[in-house]
């Protein structure tokens, strides 16, 4: 009996191994086909780390991945000019009128448009979409409240009028272009399907939970599938009022590992890889199949100081720190393709920004740094900590600064942590210094001046946590006044001059040593035509094969 069992077992094992061999052979045969497969002709296929997506509600979204997807699925009133982002072009608003006192802007909307649900797009939808942003009061509400809109006045200040018009009534004569860039081209003006959202309202959330996993708006594409941490599918919106996209589908696969993205791109299994490392990009330079596309975006990577007390409360110490940053070497190594040196808070390409040379006057100069420290009362240096998160370039930059600082007696201890932990510490002013990134939504110097320099109330209990200047415990009342004056200056040349003066002053004494302005970089297969983007938008609908 035992023998029989043994024989049977052997036969089973043999059968099993044959099955395994067959499966392996099938895999190899199937695999041979897939490895050389090209992406579908009618689809744009991207590999991208899309972990950050947690909602599709424009009132709540605060990160670049979802913002880009929403920009391709939800129209805004106006759009950034693709070739010059400082200009705006019509979007869902075909045209607009501005009152003589610059305090009213009336948008004339496209006619006959429909949401993917079949509901007609009305002026009421447009106005309500902006009302809900302020009423929900997530972070994006500040985009409207900084122009005087509040929960109490929003329904009187943003009004749907007759004949498919919507009027914005402003409390001050802000520069019209700034309002168009800051509000009408921003996600806060994305046009939502009020009927659908109100039919799915939970409590009084104005459809916020409904939008956690789907969209309800009008745009060249519609979101048809999202599997968190896996993939996204956008389909062309057949009833779209505007020009139909060239490619019917956009397929985004979540690929967290840059090396894997590079393999997929090289094999032609994706058209675009969005998170390649500088090493990958360097290796792909000169490839006959793959182009490296990059464009400056309005994101700054900076070393921020808590100026509440300690060495960083002294202006000369903060200035000395700027001379410890090896802009040139880092720009040519760690930051190749990823960004360009930039010391001004106003990003290149913004209205009122200093040019590349004036906006980056610093270089590694240990003697100068030592001299400044001596003048500040720290001839023998000091000890301090530097916190940073999971951005891949943060670690090597922090190490470079640490090594330079050690040469003049400044002992910096580096502490890497999860981004959520970093943000919590910085928001709570529980840090000495930190390296992190900040992105503005407008191509105007005011965008960053109003958050990175202006601080309305520096008291700890004021908790103005949405202002990085408050997080740095930095307030300069004179600079506050200058920023207010520059904002409302009607003369363009004078306005530029005001911002130039503010930038120079902040570079000398501000609470942040700006280091690099970041690029958006992608590896794009050359058989994908018309990959089109600027610092504020990526235009999926223009991509073609």
């Amino acid at each position, binding site marked *: 009996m035992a023998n029989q069992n043994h024989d049977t077992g052997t036969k089973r094992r043999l059968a099993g191994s044959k099955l395994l061999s067959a499966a392996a052979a099938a895999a190899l045969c199937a*695999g041979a086909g*897939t490895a050389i497969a090209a992406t*579908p002709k009618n689809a744009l296929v991207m590999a991208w780390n899309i972990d950050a997506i947690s909602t599709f509600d424009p009132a709540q979204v605060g990160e670049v991945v979802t913002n880009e997807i929403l920009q391709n699925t939800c129209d805004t009133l106006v759009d950034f000019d693709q070739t010059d982002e400082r200009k705006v072009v019509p979007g869902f608003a075909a045209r607009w009128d501005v009152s003589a006192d610059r305090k009213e802007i009336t948008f004339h909307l496209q006619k006959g448009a429909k949401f993917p649900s079949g509901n007609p797009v009305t002026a009421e939808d447009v106005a309500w979409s902006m009302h809900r942003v302020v009423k929900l009061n997530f972070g994006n509400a500040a985009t409207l409240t900084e122009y005087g809109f509040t929960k109490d006045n929003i329904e009187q200040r943003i009004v749907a009028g007759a004949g498919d018009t919507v009027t914005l009534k402003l409390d001050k004569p802000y520069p019209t272009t700034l309002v168009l860039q800051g509000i009408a081209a921003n996600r806060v003006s994305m046009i939502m399907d009020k009927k659908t959202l109100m039919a799915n309202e939970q409590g009084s959330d104005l459809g916020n939970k409904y939008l956690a996993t789907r969209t309800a708006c009008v745009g060249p594409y519609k979101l048809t599938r999202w599997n*968190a941490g896996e993939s996204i599918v956008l389909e062309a919106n057949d009833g779209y009022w505007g020009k139909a996209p060239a490619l019917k589908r956009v397929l985004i696969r979540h690929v967290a590992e840059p090396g*894997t993205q590079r*393999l997929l791109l090289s094999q032609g299994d994706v058209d675009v890889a969005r998170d390649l490392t500088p090493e990958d990009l360097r290796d792909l330079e000169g490839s006959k199949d793959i182009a490296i596309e990059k464009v400056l975006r309005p994101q700054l990577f900076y070393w921020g100081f808590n100026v509440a007390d300690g060495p960083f409360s002294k202006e000369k110490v903060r200035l000395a720190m700027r001379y410890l940053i090896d802009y040139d070497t880092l720009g040519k190594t760690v930051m190749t393709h990823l960004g360009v040196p930039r010391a001004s808070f106003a990003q290149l390409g913004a209205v009122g920004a200093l040019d590349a040379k004036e906006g980056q006057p610093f270089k590694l100069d240990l003697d100068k740094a030592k001299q400044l420290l001596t003048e500040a009362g720290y001839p023998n240096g000091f000890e301090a900590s530097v916190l940073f998160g999971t951005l891949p370039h943060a670690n090597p930059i922090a190490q470079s600064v640490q090594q330079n600082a050690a040469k003049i007696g400044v002992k910096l201890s580096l502490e890497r942590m999860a981004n959520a*932990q970093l943000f919590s510490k*910085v928001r709570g002013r529980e840090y000495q210094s930190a390296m992190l990134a900040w992105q503005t939504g407008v191509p105007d110097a005011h965008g960053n001046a109003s958050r990175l320099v202006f601080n309305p109330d520096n008291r700890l209990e004021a908790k103005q*946590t*949405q202002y990085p200047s408050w997080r740095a415990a930095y307030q300069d009342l004179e600079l506050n006044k200058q920023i207010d004056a520059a904002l409302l200056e009607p003369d363009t040349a004078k306005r530029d001059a005001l911002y130039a003066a503010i930038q120079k002053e902040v570079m000398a004494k501000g609470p942040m040593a700006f280091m690099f302005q970041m690029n958006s970089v992608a590896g794009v297969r050359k058989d994908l035509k018309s990959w089109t983007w600027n610092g504020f938008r990526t235009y999926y609908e223009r991509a073609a094969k």
Partner: protein
Amino acid sequence: MSRTATAAPGLSSDPGRTILPSWLKASGRTLVSFAVTLLGLAALTFFIGRLLPLDPVVAVLGDNVTQEAYQAMYKQLGLDQPLYVQFGRYLWGVLHLDFGMALTTGKPVMTDIARVFPATIELASVAIVIGTSFGIPLGVLSAMYRGSWLDQIVRVVGLIGYSAPNFWLGLMGLVLFYATLGWVGGPGRIDFTYEFDLEPVTGFLLIDSLLAGNWEMFGNAVSHIILPASILAFSSLAYISRMTRSFMMEQLSQEYVVTARVKGLSWARTVWGHAFRNIAVQVLTVVALSYAFLLEGAVLTETVFAWPGFGRYLTNALLAGDMNAVVGCTLLVGVIFVTLNLLCDLLYRVFDPRTR
């Protein structure tokens, strides 16, 4: 009293205590132990999660948020309540299979787990089949031919399996078998072309494609899973073969083996028919533990292969401060380990009569 003293086999032989059958008492003890383990795990993870300097409000709203909105969300998440109240509410939810909402995906944690776990089960199952199929025979052969070239090779392979990082092996495997030779599919569970044509039934692509009768899709899914599963199987194989070798060597030094050989039994039959049966229980434990580790999530392998599985979900949740998801996943890992232990206990009874 006399009833218990003369009870039939299977009933308690302790006259002063109970008349419950021993299997019922054992099951009761197991269930209590199961519940206490999970409760302890839930409490530990929950309170550690609350002590960590990760802000769940920032995870939901981002850092660019007004203090007013921050406070509103803080309250909405129940973080303004005392810790014991928060824990009580959480336990109440868990008892109703409600682990709360995942802050980073906006979906119930259970929904997320139901979505990612099949991918991991599928990968781990294929890996353990490969690892066991090769690991046990290699371990036995290595013990049988101790000191031979075969033994040396198995030991070197085991050493590499232990020491080479899966992350590196995965990337090298992709470069060689996917990018250079084109033998296997690339990262992901299936090609994009097929991904959107398949309606998930079980969540296991190999099964769903078969159910759909789509052999081409099945082949594609196999071509995608074979490499990551083999990489994972490599480390399991190393562990299983090494342990099997060790168990078998101990058995082969026993007198009954010599006796069997003296009586004329062949070497193969002595090993497989007698010695192996004596180590089956130990090998089973090793295989079950390996499987549990694979199910727990092979984060790095999942990352390299863009495999949307459980390990990566848990890691992302941890980094984002999404404690609902972290605690839910931790409980699931606990359930996996306890369940596999129970399963082992049951199988012991099958393989080893002494434990019955």
